[in-house]
């Protein structure tokens, strides 16, 4: 995973609540067996319907998305986080995220930032009224700055460390091999075995 310390780039607004992962990446694009190349299909159906806000020239190449509550609800498809990353987004700001999407984001290098709804509304207003405005999201200091707007955000300290260092979580766990083997030796015999 690519480390994440700080990102500065255009802030794009998508002022909708409950954006589900079917909207972020429709199912017809889940058949790829690679992790990359999903960017062109991000919000595919909404883009195709025309006049989609993220297609306005000022938001091209945006690095941060500000959006509504419960972003990424629904399906567990990690392709949703991959498509945002592949399209150039490094962070998403919302009042809340779907549980699985949030976990997938941490693990694939996309920073999910939860802010109180009034602050999200303010960022949304700024991004809408001043299209193309830049925002800085600093994971190290846990601060956000956009024009005159500045705030701090809270984040799970473990995943913050993982992101800052670009840690491979599998490698971290493999170091616990002894503990895992000890646990395995205590598992009861009636548990199911698939062979």
């Amino acid at each position, binding site marked *: 995973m690519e480390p994440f310390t700080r990102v500065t780039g255009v802030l794009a607004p998508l002022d*909708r*609540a*409950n954006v*589900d992962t*079917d*909207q972020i990446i*429709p*199912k*017809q694009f*889940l*058949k*790829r*067996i*690679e*992790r990359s190349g999903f960017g062109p299909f991000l919000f595919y*159906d909404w883009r*195709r319907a025309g006049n989609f806000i993220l297609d306005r020239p000022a938001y091209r190449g945006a690095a941060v998305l500000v959006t509504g*509550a*419960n972003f990424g*609800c*629904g*399906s*567990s*498809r*990690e*392709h949703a*986080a991959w498509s945002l990353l592949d399209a150039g987004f490094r962070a998403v700001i919302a009042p*809340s995220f*779907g*549980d*699985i999407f949030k*976990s*997938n984001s941490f*693990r*694939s290098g996309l920073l999910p930032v939860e802010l109180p709804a009034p602050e999200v509304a303010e960022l949304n207003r700024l991004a809408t009224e001043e299209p193309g405005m830049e925002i800085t999201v600093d994971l190290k200091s846990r601060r956000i700055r956009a024009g005159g707007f500045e705030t701090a955000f809270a984040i*799970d*300290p*473990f995943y913050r460390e993982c992101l800052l260092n670009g840690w*491979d*979580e*599998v490698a971290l*766990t*493999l170091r*616990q091999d002894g*503990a*895992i083997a000890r*646990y*395995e030796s205590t*598992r*009861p*015999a*009636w*548990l*199911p*075995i*698939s*062979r």
Partner: protein
Amino acid sequence: MKTMAEKIWEQHVVVAGDGEPDLLYVDLHLVHEVTSPQAFESLRLANRRVRRPDLTVATMDHDVPTRGGRLAADEIAERQMSALESNCRREGIALYGIGHARQGIVHVIGPELGLTQPGLLIVCGDSHTSTHGAFGALAFGIGTSEVEHVLATQCLRQRRPKTMAVTVDGALPLGVTAKDVALGIIARIGVDGGRGHVIEYRGSTIRALSMEGRMTVCNMTIEGGARAGMVAPDETTVTYLKGRPYAPADAQWDAAIAHWKALATDADAPFDQEVVIDATRLEPYVTWGTNPGQSVPVSGSVPNPVTETDERALAYMALEPGTAMEAIAVDRVFIGSCTNARLEDLRLAASVVRGHSVHPKVRAMVVPGSASVKRLAEAEGLDAVFRQAGFEWRDAGCSMCLGMNPDILGPGERCASTSNRNFEGRQGRGGRTHLVSPPMAAAAAIAGHLVDVREFGKN
């Protein structure tokens, strides 16, 4: 005093997090073709192997064609199925692929094979893994990076979720099913009401449900925002499991039951949130919008929009506020999915269909949840009931629940569906989904419009 979720969690802690997430042991890892290829690929690139292939089971469900067999799959779906085959072969993982007698939707075959058992920690790269909680397992959906982590380590790092009790009491009125219980709960708590929680379903209504009904309720847990939902194991659970291929046998059976009985939430164990629902007031529900929380009783009408989300949903669904739900004509009917494609669901639907014909303007299909469900249904003649009425009778798979195979809605087509998500474009770009129970879907197929199954066939 602990809740069932807390007990199971603590039984699976390999390394306590001490401020960091806990490292948990996974008893059963279910795998399918769509969310696993990148995980296997990363594993291979890192020169790692699957730690416990014997605790891993794979099937093909999302992409599979439901008629014409494997040859009917498109090129990309074929690539995904082949990738799963070669990954499972290389790692020694049991695979119930297309054409196998045990193939089916991952959340249908786990229980019917007896792999899903009380007290287990079960994960799968699929949000509807919550289904397995019906057995008193802690079961939740994970992303592909986590799939890779479980393949490599058989463990998962997680923070302990909060707990929510949803108590449903009273006898279900006639015509009201487990699906309506699920939709009723989501209407109450909202699509993100369960976020960050594990839900335990309790109360006399839940106790009276069959295992199939409990699976339907737990399946829809994720639509209320919670990753896992569960029901304490009881005699219904034990009776269901006895004699299944992977269920414990002989002396192991008694040891297992003793363990299962100790899992129930202790009396007075506190939950972070509690919700109480009166089952006697539930009705058959229909969704009118584009998320599973946007529902009304079938006897009601399309509501006035309150939020911008509501307005956008009404526009997408092409519905006018005030329209009686029963006045909404449908083009398609889909009976299937991990929510409602088990034998009991098909029996309920067939009991409504018997002696009727599908409306001439409606195209209706039944997609059994597994090859086994299909065989059992055929053995009792349900296929004949559906076929004679004009339903298509298909092979097992996820099918039109998410339309990754050729079974999709056309733009503007309206469907009464027993599946779990009415999101925009979920069943096909531009398609419009109304979530209902199996009997309600069957009645809509015959009437040609949404109809109250309680009144259906009275005249």
